[in-house]
């Protein structure tokens, strides 16, 4: 039995905001099933009492001095955006009803 179904892959793609095609779903479901089967081997290791590592080199929060410094130029940044209007990023509709 596969460890991940085509329907699960479709749901995960939706969560990840990927409008995958039917062909991709067919391909990815088979490939991800093989990959998940392989990576599931981590479960063979007895590690109940082992602390997890998020960063291999110990890190602590770093604060910078609270001083004003130049930021990126607004016009330069907006010129790189897919759409800008009135000195702001213009986004697609975010509410249900069109205006």
């Amino acid at each position: 039995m596969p460890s991940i179904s085509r329907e699960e892959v479709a749901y995960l793609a939706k969560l990840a905001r990927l409008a995958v095609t039917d062909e991709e779903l067919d391909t990815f479901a088979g490939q991800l099933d093989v990959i998940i089967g392989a990576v599931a081997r981590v479960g063979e290791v007895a590690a109940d009492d082992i602390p997890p590592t998020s960063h291999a080199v110990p890190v602590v929060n770093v604060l910078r001095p609270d001083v004003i410094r130049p930021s990126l130029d607004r016009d330069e940044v907006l010129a790189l955006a897919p759409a800008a209007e009135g000195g702001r990023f213009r986004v697609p509709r975010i509410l249900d009803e069109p205006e």
Partner: protein
Amino acid sequence: MSDLVRLDAASLAAEIAAGNLSAVEVAEAHLDRIVATDDRVHAFLHVDADGALTAARAVDERRSRGEELGPLAGVPLAMKDVVVTRGLPSTSGSKILAGWRPPYDATVSARVKAAGIVMLGKTNMDEFAMGSSTENSAYGATHNPWDLSRVPGGSSGGSSAAVAAYQAPLGIGTDTGGSIRQPAAVTGLIGHKPTYGGVSRYGLIAFSSSLDQAGPLTRTVLDAALLHEAIGGHDPADSTSIDAPLPALVTAARDGARADLSGLRVGIVRELSGEGYEPGVLAGFAAAVTLLTGLGATVTEVSCPHFSYALPAYYLIAPSECSSNLARFDAVRYGLRVGDDGVRGLEEVMSLTREAGFGAEVKRRVILGTYALSSGYYDAYYGQAQKVRTLISRDFAAAFADCDVLVSPTTPTVAFPLGARVDDPMAMYAADLCTLPASLAGTPAISVPCGLSDGLPVGLQIMAPAQADDRCYRVAAAVETAVAGRDGRPILAAAPPV
């Protein structure tokens, strides 16, 4: 081919400083070499000839004014496209960033410029550094200069191919699971992954933030040390940057070149051998071990039992971090936007944009990471992988109690043919088998050419404890010297002309 492009970076810098060569003629020779060869190699995504010549002229002017130049001033460099460069294309090999010209420099870019290094352009790579062959680039594959029908490794395959093809003596790569060391091994170069935190990640387009590190790809160990010193060291803009001086890397490389490793304790990692390793690779590795013994090192075998689980742990941790990092590509602030017709909502535009802008491997990893992080699976996958990561670090610590460095082949196979693994993700992932433990432990590791298998280069990986990068350079330089002594020439000299 101009003989000038065969010179290593240290020699070029010395000739420029002495006034025997101008930085402009050095840049022009390499730009000519790119024009003459890159239709076959396809190492570069963008060549910045004007910018390179401007930077070279500035070095020549500084010299004519009698200013002191840095140890790499005037030397050309190939920059991996994952490193953002102000005003120059920085796509990370992805269509989703086509046309984006970042408004700032990565710390690595800024330090390269400050050192007077002449950046020739941006090099090809697997999309967002996800891959081991550079075939996952949205802009076509790069070809291995040793054999144009084979891969140059990945994900830093553009930089490895550029340096191996004498298009540039210096290359910058990034290494998340082996993406500097594996390309170096399969193209006959030196490639070093620094200790995590040793080189700033500010301005690297993030793939897996707890693993990503930039580092050098070069034709000599000394050049790698020089470049590492130019880009490395503390950076307040990266909160994971180590706030301590770099070890003396150039000194270590020069010391190693004297070819005396008396008293050095070398451990062969038993788990990084055996099934899946080509006989030619294992023979090259065995010959390298013989060289180490001849250099005066004491060689023993060590066991790191959890290294066998590095691959499954990595392919949970890296996709999990990537699924989170790539959420920034939301079609709002930069890059591609698809389907914004005034009717579709944000969520649909975002989904259509990411579908159109990401390639297959990126989508696979984003979906895999989303799965591994989802409730109900988190503990079994991502959480368990993080525990295995702890155990791998403990294996290293135990081995380093008895050994100064650990060695293994860098890759299980030599460069494989283009197309051979693109439809089989697990076969592609296996290319990282030997490089993943040091990635997960955040420890430094270098690949140095040690032999040939059927005419293709084999790499020796040398691993050291965190912040002991100098040991990698010292031992690599000794091996480099011993290999040249054994063969009568460096490994790369065996490459057929492109």
